[in-house]
């Protein structure tokens, strides 16, 4: 069972308090009707499915209730970092600097 750092609670807590919520940084288009069928299809269904560091969303559903983003290594399952919804995906350099 993983430990997950909630960027809102600023606390690291058991996975049982959290729920996975799909890939991160897939922004709903401002005007969906302006999108072609192919563009809309990509928004709906096309995901990266990376082996390695994956940007994904989690919700601290049994805690503060917030959705947030995380970088997680899909090979080791480990969280690399978590950050608030709306924040940019951290660059690898800033991650190393933070360590």
């Amino acid at each position, binding site marked *: *069972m*993983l*430990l997950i750092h909630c960027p809102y609670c600023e606390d690291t807590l*058991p996975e049982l308090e959290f*729920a996975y*919520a799909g890939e991160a940084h897939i*922004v*709903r288009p401002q*005007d*969906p*009707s302006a*999108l072609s*069928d192919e563009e*809309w*299809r990509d928004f*709906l269904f096309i995901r990266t499915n990376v082996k390695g560091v994956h940007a994904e*969303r989690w*919700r601290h*559903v049994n805690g503060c*209730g*917030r*959705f947030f983003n995380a970088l997680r290594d899909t090979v*080791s*399952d*480990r969280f690399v970092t978590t950050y608030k*919804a*709306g924040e940019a995906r951290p660059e690898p350099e800033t991650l190393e600097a933070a360590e």
Partner: protein
Amino acid sequence: MTDYRVAGRGRVDHGKPVKFTFDGKTVTGRAGDTVASALLANGQHLMGRGFKYHRPRGVVTAGSEEPNALVGITRGNGRFEPNTRATMQEIYSGLTAESQNKWPSLAFDVGAINDRLYMMFSAGFYYKTFMWPRSFWDSVYEPFIRKAAGLGKAPTEVDPDQYASRFLHCDVLVVGSGPSGLAAALTAGRAGADVVIVDEHSEMGGTLLSEPQAVIDGLPAWEWLAGAVAELDAMSNVRRMTRTTAIGYYHQNMIGMVERITDHLAMLPENAPRERMWRVRAGEVVLAQGAIERPLVFHGNDTPGVMLSGAAQTFLNRFGVLVGKRPAVLTSHDSAWHSAFDMAEAGAKVAAIIDTRDVVDAALHDRAASLGIEVLTGHTATATRGRLRITSVRVNPVRSGTVGAGRWIDCDALLACGGWTPSLHLFSHTKGSLHWDAEAQVYLPGRKSEAVQIAGAGRGLWGIGAALDDGATAGAAALRSLGKSASAPSYKVSGDRIGTGVFHKELPTDRSPGRAKAFVDFQNDVTAKDLRLAVREGMKSIEHVKRYTTNGMATDQGKLSNMNGLTIAADALGKEAPQVGLTTFRPPYTPTTFGAFCGYHKGAQFEVTRKTPIDGWAETHGAVFEPVALWRRAWYFPKSGEDMHKAVARECKATRQSLGIFDASTLGKIEVSGPDAVEFMNRMYTNPWTKLGVGRCRYGLLLGEDGFIRDDGVIGRMREDLFHVTTTTGGAARVLNMMEDYLQTEWPDLKVWLTSTTEEWATIALNGPNARKLLAPFVEGADISAEAMPHMSVVECTVAGFPSRLFRISFTGELGFEINVPARHGRALWEKLWEAGRQYDICPYGTETMHVLRAEKGFIIVGQDTDGTITPQDAGLDWAIGKAKPDFVGKRSLARPDLVAPNRKQLVGLLTEDPKTVLIEGAQIVDDPNQPKPMKMIGHVTSSYWSEALGRSVAMAVIEGGHGRMNGTIHVPQAEGKPIRATVTTTQFYDPKGERLLVE
């Protein structure tokens, strides 16, 4: 039986005899014995039968790695556990143990015929033996496999025991309480850290329990041990747990541990759980699991009496039992020599020490000579004699790779030692890498992926002194990682047994290897020959060899067999062991009961059963319940003699004719509140909300972004900036989560907040022509007349004095009200309405009647009439779409090519040709019943009921191009009998104009 007990030896209480039964015979042991040690004390090695060949088997080890001595333990009242390790089960007065895999008796077993059919069961026999003739499968092979499969008997009764669970957080968890574990715990504990130390045995000490000769810091080992245990117990920051197995090492230092609480007790204390699952989160873990002795592989190495030398030493020194009075020792490692010496000193006549090595330490030779023990170096063993117990072993000299003439040596036990394997099972669970030490020929821990220290024999160190120092160092290292400091003491140990050895593949033999029964995996009956055959038949990877032969796949997970299997497979492949690889160890470390995993989740607590405030009334009034999501809901209220059909017909009729009362409390409710509430509603739901007046309600339809229906419900506008949203019972949590998702991540600029009020309100639905007549006298603060309160409106008032949100809505087509009151008042209000309703023959109804009444009106149930592929158009709900709205969740998808394609499955009504026929829900629909099979299916029945109001059956279905098939005929093929003909109709079967709502 002969007595093999050695007075004055061991840690058992010689003054306390304990009687138990084994296969019905009374056996006397001593307090502190295991089943295995007590049987050995009575001269019995035979404890089980092999899995495939039913060969007699004796105990091999003294610990949890035991592959052979598996017994069934019965404690009465349905308590039965198969496959309990006799080496781990402590005896108590009245214990009932039985051997397994035998019939009619352990000593004479008919199944041993399989031993004669040896060739039939070679590697991969599953894939070969039963292939032909095909007709034999049902009549011969399957019954045979079913009878033969499995180990032990499954319990037949419900387990009456309680099981517990607990979460625990600590700084340092030490797994294993041998010298390294104890030293680690002492070091960390003295520094003030929160320490947990666990051991699977009944007492702590590990190796120290088997090596009393050692002297630690001037104290005999057992005195030092008693002091260490007392010191740990005196520290309030240390938790010491025995009979507790660390079964799995999971992410981020989460360790699963099972504590056995009552299995060693003669009397079961009241309220005591049998086992407890601990979920421990440790800052640092110290693995001090020691090493496991490796068997030697030679023909006849499974004869009862052949056992590991370290086990013999443990039985003698810990339990005071000689495993034989004339033991022989067969070894490739120094450690077995000490076992021989200990046994000789305890009075055994050691027949010989047979060492495969040519050169052995002179000190060992001297000691053997002084004890009068014959020593044969450079020898191999090629056979054993004795069926139920070994009587002799055949040994041959090996000179320059040539096996010389054999000679039989009489013995009543053969202590074999093929070296020691560091126990790295838990470390492997972490996906930490293993490093092959070519010199030592063992795998050692390599790169770590967790905050873990490995100490002692687990990382290849040998001897008590080295283990103690290493454990102390590991304890200090763990604390340093946690940012604390600790000093690691150094220990002075004398009498330590430091030794070396070599590892072998099968021992060399002068006989045909093809006929050898040289076992590698005792529990799954896999021989060296099987492994070589697997390689010959093309298995290149150790993972394939493992699965083809089942080596290491028994309940012991190859604790004894994996390394021997790897060595032999590598030899057959002509590769080095690390090139062949190692199979993966997975949790649990030892077999674990289902009870331990279930914990408290049994009986009424198997899972959460949510009950409404009115549930108790329904139960008192004879309701039959059905599960809906986690809720239990009243399904129908049968009167005496009524079946479901009759009860539902009566409830339907009573509601349509006069008045029905229904508990709708499980409906999801969400408060959508804030200045941007209406904008939020416009974006989430398909419907337009801007013009909905305060005090009015609207049916709301929620789609996923993919355009498919997700949920629906009636939504009331309580204030300009406040909506009372209802959802389906099962959808409540999902809808709230979806709303929060959009609000938090897509539209964080909206000033609106969501709060679940599902459980704040109890909801009572009144339906029927007399609903208003019953309700009106209870209402204060609102006028609920038809003029003042039209259909689809909501008002805040009091009902029977309780504050209420009162909706005029209808899911039945009758005049209807839904009264929401604070949950604590739900039952009181229900009872008041029930009392007053008698004048109208008020009828409580359940979910089944609710389903029938709504189906008669053609109202859908999301999840029953929709399945995640149904659009609003498919369901005939185009009218619920706000066409003028620029956007809402799912709108863009409604224009996707597949969603506007012709011939989509659409929701329609069905009327069977014979009105008495009620279709089966889920039944498939075809156009032409005479077409050849497989027929083209064009849809399926989603809802189907007997309609009392219409005096006939009604059904709903999704059918390809259904809306264009009105009045057409379709067919519903049956498993038996003729297909049923039905006519496609609209879904509004009853009162299509809605006139029944207009009751004055």
